[in-house]
Structure formats: C-alpha cells, structure tokens
C-alpha cells in the first residue's frame, strides 16, 4: 500500500517536473527568439541607414564579428540589388569594408559548386572591380552554372577585361549557350559598341562574323551600318541573313539599297530576311522593291514582302491591292491572305 502511494507520488512529481521544464524551455526560447528578432531588426535599421550615411558601418561590423555575418550579407545584397549610381557605389564600399568581397572571392574556390555559384552571383551584385580577375578565372569553372554566373557578373561589372572574356565565350560555341551570352552583352548597352565594331571588322570565322553582325543589330549600332553593308556579299549564307536582319533592326534609310540587293540573293533565306527588314525601315522608297518581291519563287519571301508592304501603311497597301487585282497567281494568293488578316484587324506577322 505504502509502495503504491509512493509510486503515484513519484509519478506525479515526474509529470510536474516535466511540465515545468517544458514551460521553462518555451519561455527561454521565446526570450531568445525575441532578442534575436530585435537584434536582426536593429541590423536592418542600420542597413537602411546606409542610404543616408554610408560610412556608418560600426554596428554592422559588430554584427559580423558577433557571427551574424550571413544575415547582414543577405540584407546588404537585397538592398544593393535595387540600387544604382552613387548609392550602388556606396554599397560596394560597404561590402569591401566589411570583408564580404574578399569572402566571396574566396568562396569561388569552394568545393561545393552551389557555393561557388552563389559567390559568382553575389560578386556581380557587390560590383567591386576587385572581383574581375577571380570572376575571369571562375568563367573557366568545371560547372556550367558557375561559368554562366561568372560571365553574367562580369557583364554587370562592365570592364574591358570582362568584356573580352564574354566575347571570347560568345565565339566559343562549345562551352556556352550563345543566346545567353548575347543577352548579357546586349544588357551592357552602348559602352561595348566600339569593341563590337573592332571585332566585326576583323571577324575571321563566318560564325564570329555572324555573331558580331547580330550584336550590331541587337545593340542598334548606327556606326556599324557601313560595316554591315560591306558584309552583304559575304560568302556565308548565315552572315548575309544576319546582315539583312541587323539592318532591319537598326532601321537606317541608307540600308535601302543594300537590302534591295539582298532581295536578289541566290538564297531564299537571305531574300526572305531582306523582305522583312525593308518593312522595318518604314520608308516608302522600299515600296517598288517589295512589290517586285511579291513575284519571288519562294513563298516566304513573297509573304514577308506582303507583310512589309502592309506595315508601310497606305502607300504599301495600295500596292498590295494592285497585286491582288492584277498580279501573278502566286502573288495574288499571298496578298489575299495578308489583306484579309489586315481587314479583320489581326496583327500581320511575316
């Protein structure tokens, strides 16, 4: 009897103790969570404070020293991502002074590819010129994602050295996705124009000539029109097609004669692109040429010529109507479809 009472009392004591310890643990957790939350909010306030006084990094240095490095780095990166100009330069200075640039450069040599990838991305955002050489090395990483992140960051840094790596990557079709590199280069804008023109003038292989012609078009480099015109009789079909496309994108009136010449190219792909490009120039001077192209033996050339005439407005549409009424049977079929789409208000695409 006594033993049973003692056992029950012991059990009760154990349960009370367990509940009590759980309560203490919960209270302690809440206490530390609140302290941590308050601490992180304090860091965040100081990070926002950099927008007013970018030299005030004392509290953030303490945070880094106290082991909250990752939180501070992520918040700084988040802020830096939204900024440009002088604000961005201030953020770069903060990254350098807190040792984050150095840390990320070191991380480019990590064993884990995901950490190298993260470092390559972060260095682009931190925008420090100190990262150019390490990123150029990272552009040869064994992992494709890391290589791509490295060249993307080089594009963001925008140095001549980095541009060279990007252009070499563009020419090396085995290791890279050209479309992605093109996108990065286009995002760099006018500052790369002179280098593109230099490489276009000296382009050795048909593939590199084609790529620089495309870049000329995507960047709308007006100073490149003469060079492009000179490449209109290139021996390579891909280069001539790219020339027609680029001249259409740039849209300068002086290209009318060259594009008219390409309408007589022996390859239908080139003629089709020339017909499309003439529509892009928006000049009524092209009407005659496009009307002649309605009799081309290739349907895509006829189609693009009809669409371009339609895009030119009343002067072009009059010619379409004339071709519909008295053109060849082939021209009539092509034109009828374009006229009908236009009448219904459906966008006419070549």
């Amino acid at each position, binding site marked *: 009897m006594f033993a049973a009472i003692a056992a029950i009392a012991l059990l009760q004591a154990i349960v009370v103790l367990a509940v009590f310890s759980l309560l203490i643990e919960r209270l302690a957790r809440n206490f530390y969570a609140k302290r941590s939350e308050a601490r992180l909010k304090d860091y965040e306030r100081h990070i*926002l*404070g950099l*927008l*007013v006084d970018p030299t005030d990094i004392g509290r953030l240095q303490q945070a880094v020293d106290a082991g909250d490095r990752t939180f501070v780095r992520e918040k700084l990166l988040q802020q830096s991502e939204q*900024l*440009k*100009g*002088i*604000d*961005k330069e201030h953020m770069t200075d903060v990254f350098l002074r807190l040792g984050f640039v150095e840390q990320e450069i070191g991380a480019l040599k990590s064993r884990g590819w995901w950490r190298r990838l993260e470092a390559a991305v972060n260095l682009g955002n931190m925008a420090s010129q100190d990262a150019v050489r390490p990123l150029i090395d990272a552009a040869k990483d064994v992992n494709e994602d890391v290589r791509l992140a490295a060249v993307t960051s080089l594009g963001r840094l925008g140095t001549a050295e980095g541009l060279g790596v990007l252009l070499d990557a563009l020419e090396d079709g085995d290791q890279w996705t050209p479309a992605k590199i093109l996108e990065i280069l286009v995002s760099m804008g006018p500052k790369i124009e002179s280098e593109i023109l230099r490489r276009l003038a000296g382009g050795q292989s048909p593939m590199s000539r084609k790529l620089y012609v495309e870049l000329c078009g995507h960047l709308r480099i007006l100073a490149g029109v003469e060079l492009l015109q000179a490449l209109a009789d290139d021996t390579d079909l891909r280069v001539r097609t790219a020339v027609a496309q680029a001249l259409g994108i740039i849209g300068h009136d002086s290209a009318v004669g060259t594009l008219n010449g390409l309408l007589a190219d022996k390859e239908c792909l080139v003629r089709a692109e020339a017909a499309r490009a003439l529509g892009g120039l928006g000049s009524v001077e092209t009407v005659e040429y496009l009307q002649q192209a309605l009799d081309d033996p290739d349907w895509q050339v006829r189609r693009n010529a009809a669409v371009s005439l339609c895009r030119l407005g009343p002067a072009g549409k009059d010619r379409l109507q004339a071709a519909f009424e008295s053109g060849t049977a082939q021209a009539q079929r092509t034109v009828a479809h374009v006229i009908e789409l236009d009448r219904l208000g459906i966008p006419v695409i070549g």
Partner: protein
Amino acid sequence: MARILVTEDEPYIYKMLEFRLNTLGHEISLATNGEQALALVDSIRPDLVLLDVMMPVMGGFQVLRKLKEDDGTSSIPVIILSAKGQEKDIVAGLEHGAFDYITKPFSFPELIARIDRALASAK
C-alpha cells in the same frame, strides 16, 4: 512636407523608400496592389503617387488610367517606378499620363530630384 503614396508589392523596396523619404520629412503610405492604391488615394488624397507597374490584383497602368480619368485625382502627379525599362514601356507609361518614369534599379538622389520636381509642378 508631402504625403506620398507608395504602391509597391516588394517589401524590401517599400522599406527602403519609406526609410529614405521619411528622413526627408515626407509622410509615406503603402499600397501593395492596385485596388488598395485606388482606395488609399480616395482616403488620404496624397500629394504624389509612386507607382509600380507589375502588381497583383490590378496593374499599375490600370491604376494610372483610373486616376487620370477621375477629375478629383487627375491632378495628382504619378511617378512610375518599374523594373520594366524598355523604350515601349516608358512611352506607354508617359502616354498613360505619368509625370515621370524611373526604372529599377534606381538611385535615391535621382528619385528625390524627380519627386521634388513633380511636387513643385503640382503646386
């Protein structure tokens, strides 16, 4: 200073704008979507609206159109602050009646100068 309505669905951008513009003495209100923005314009009558384009529920251009159609709100200057930075986006924003168009990423000195100019023009 001025009452500025910030219409922005990205919390960190809002925090940055609120912090920096508060330090200049402006009073900041937040809407995280287009519908909220229109409701807040009715209730607080801001001196200026900073408007994002890509937002849930109702997009920025739709908000702008409604503001400009309403005689009571058409004179409030609207500055678009958007990640969409292509020529056609900027032209569309200005054609819809925006006072100015700023692309993200942005710099505060430029943003503040444009806000000051917009506020001065509305006086």
